């Protein structure tokens, strides 16, 4: 039962699902574009295939809508989904705890405070065409990560309990500071709340061009530590006995997963539950082996967030709902259903 072939099979199924979802998502929206036209437009972007497609027959307006508005947003949501689910798998494995999510060590609170400061106090600095909010959110997320990490490092070892506790404590403080700013700047409150609830309304190619390579690189590097993560779930001592450099691997994965989460949250706001639920659903489908769980969860995270975002921008058209609300409102009942149905079988 080669792990490689099993992984490949699942990944292939998930990729097909993802492609179908991309076509559907590109087709739905305020401007109605048929599935067939959508498929043709999408195919015309793919090098090699585009020669066979007669773009002249297609509506130029549709091509622009899809290529400049929908696709950047679709890709951004996919990559944020990949990032959140990957970070979720890593944190759950590292902490040996299925409750862990990408924001467990306070990345989200840091990003929120950063974003708030950016929204309220700073004029657009226009660095690399990325919004000031995003840059400040990223800075807040990274600063929090390294602060929490620094507090929890004792004699070169990272204590998981200290990490979680300092993360919770720091989150509380940072959130309080965010609320404080909101009280004094009431006219910005709606903007802040909307950002915190998460979404892709300001998605653009310039965001995606930064996000995609960073997330891809970090996710792939982390992928080489999945055998170690399997063994670490037996406990640190046992893992060390089996030849795992526990402290080193933990440090590397902590930094990588925190970076992944920080980048994602700064681009999209705080989108809850994707990073928590996706690994659980995949664990039910493919089992707990991180070598399979990690890549499949990553792709599935992309699908889940793309689906959620498509719903977020279409269910109450023309009004948009923050995607974080969709992931929670739909994700939580689904998760609870799985939990009840499978009882203790997940773990």
């Amino acid at each position: 039962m080669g792990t490689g072939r099993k992984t490949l099979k699942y990944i292939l199924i998930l990729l097909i699902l993802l492609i179908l979802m991309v076509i559907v998502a590109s087709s739905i929206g305020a401007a109605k574009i048929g599935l067939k036209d959508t498929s043709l437009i999408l195919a015309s972007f793919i090098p090699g295939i585009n020669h066979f497609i007669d773009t002249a027959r297609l509506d130029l307006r549709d091509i622009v809508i899809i290529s400049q508005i929908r696709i950047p947003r679709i890709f951004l949501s996919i990559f944020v989904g990949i990032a959140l689910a990957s970070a979720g798998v890593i944190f759950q494995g590292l902490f040996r705890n299925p409750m862990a999510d990408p924001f467990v060590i306070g990345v989200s609170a840091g990003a929120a405070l950063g974003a708030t400061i950016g929204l309220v106090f700073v004029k657009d600095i226009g660095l690399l065409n990325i919004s000031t909010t995003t840059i400040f959110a990223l800075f807040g997320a990274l600063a929090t990560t390294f602060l929490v990490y620094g507090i929890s490092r004792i004699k070169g070892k990272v204590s998981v309990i200290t990490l979680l506790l300092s993360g919770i404590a720091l989150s509380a403080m940072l959130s309080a500071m965010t609320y404080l700013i909101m009280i004094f700047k009431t006219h910005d409150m709606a903007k802040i709340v909307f950002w915190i609830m998460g979404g892709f309304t300001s998605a653009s190619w310039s965001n995606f061009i930064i996000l995609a390579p960073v997330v891809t690189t970090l996710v792939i590097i982390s992928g080489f530590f999945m055998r170690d993560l399997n063994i670490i779930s037996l406990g640190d001592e046992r893992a060390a006995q089996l030849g795992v450099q526990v402290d080193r691997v933990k440090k590397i994965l902590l930094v990588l997963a925190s970076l992944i989460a920080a980048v994602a949250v700064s681009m999209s706001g705080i989108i809850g539950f994707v990073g928590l639920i996706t690994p659980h659903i995949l664990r039910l489908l493919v089992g707990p082996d991180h070598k399979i769980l990690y890549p499949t969860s990553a792709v599935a995270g992309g699908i889940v967030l793309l689906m959620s975002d498509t719903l977020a921008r279409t269910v109450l058209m023309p009004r948009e709902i923050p995607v974080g609300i969709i992931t929670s409102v739909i994700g939580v009942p689904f998760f609870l259903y799985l939990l009840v149905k499978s009882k203790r079988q997940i773990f």
Partner: protein
Amino acid sequence: MNRDNSVLSVKNLNFSYNHKKVLDNVSFDVGREDFISILGPNGAGKSTLVNLISGVIKGYEGIIKVGGRNIKDSNPKDIAKMIAVVPQYTNPAFGFTVAEMVMMGRNPYISRFGMERKEDFNEVGKVMEKTRILSFAERKFSELSGGEKQRVIIAQVLAQDSPILLLDEPTSHLDINFQIEFINLFLNLNKKDKKTIIGIFHDINLAIQNSKKIMLLKEGRVYDFGRCEKVISRQSLKSVFNSDVFVGKNPITKKMYVSPIFSPTGQRAAAGKKVKKHLRIHVIGGGGAASPVINLLQESGYDLSCGVINTLDTDLDTAQMLGIPYVTEAPFSPISIGSQNKNLQFVKSSDVVILPELEFGYGNFSNLVSVKEAVGLGKKVIIVDKKSIGKRDYTGGKAEKLYRKIIKDGAIVVKSVDKVLSHL
């Protein structure tokens, strides 16, 4: 020990944790195919020693060499190829299958960037067959019974294919049937597969019955290390564990065994305390009558001897288990002049002689003569006399006559064993 033959060599190992010395200048060598048990009370440093040898904890002083190579110069995977640890239990955070669990044992052989190779699957299959877990290879580890789980863990350990196995109390939470199964497995691995086994066992008997050598650890130091017969004694166990045990020999296997001495609080406390008066006491033995007296006096901490007892007599077992000096005679034979003289030596060197409720025949009549001698020497003689001597005399009145004479000459008569103490 021949140094070339040692697979594990520990030299001047010192380790402190939170400024408290856990291991204090520990040195020893382990040869190929050794089966060594490390014994010692909680906090003696056993687990720390295992963790240091297996490279799990670092920051020690001294040298640990595995297969001739300093483990400070080896990476964790190389150490894991040489030494595999069997833990007490393992509790994975996620629901891995049995096969997945066993494959984790191959970690030292698989590169970070590589995949499991064919030989890894072969090895996993082999060890699963050996540990008889193939039939539930695809079941979840978490759903197995305690004994099945431990079998899986042992398969995981064997998948490491290491010449040395470190056992960290691997059977302490298992029922006796599994304990026996696993000990047999380890014995087999030691004998057939030539694996070196170093184990921590909570059960002293399990350790001494199965290992070739014993290491006694006390407060982070090696108290003694060597063959069981050399290392295990009532004295050494008392010193290391600070508790009183019988050390006997299993009549069937001829191997040593240890059994704890349980006694009610009062007597237990007495055993620990210094005796009021230091007295040498000789107890006349035979027919099991001396055992209760010996036991009582032993717990009270007196210096005892016993004789003359026939081999196969219960009193002899008692004397041997408690490790007190004794004089014996061949089974069912009358007491010889030689034994009688030895017995008299003991009588002469003691302060008190005690005569329990023995039955007298012509064979052991000379024991009574020894008591008479003691009275003559002015020794304090205490006689336990509940059942009248007439009913215990099989010499046609000869023993009874001497017995009465001894009492007349000043021996103290008590009506029960417990009363003996009040006359000392």
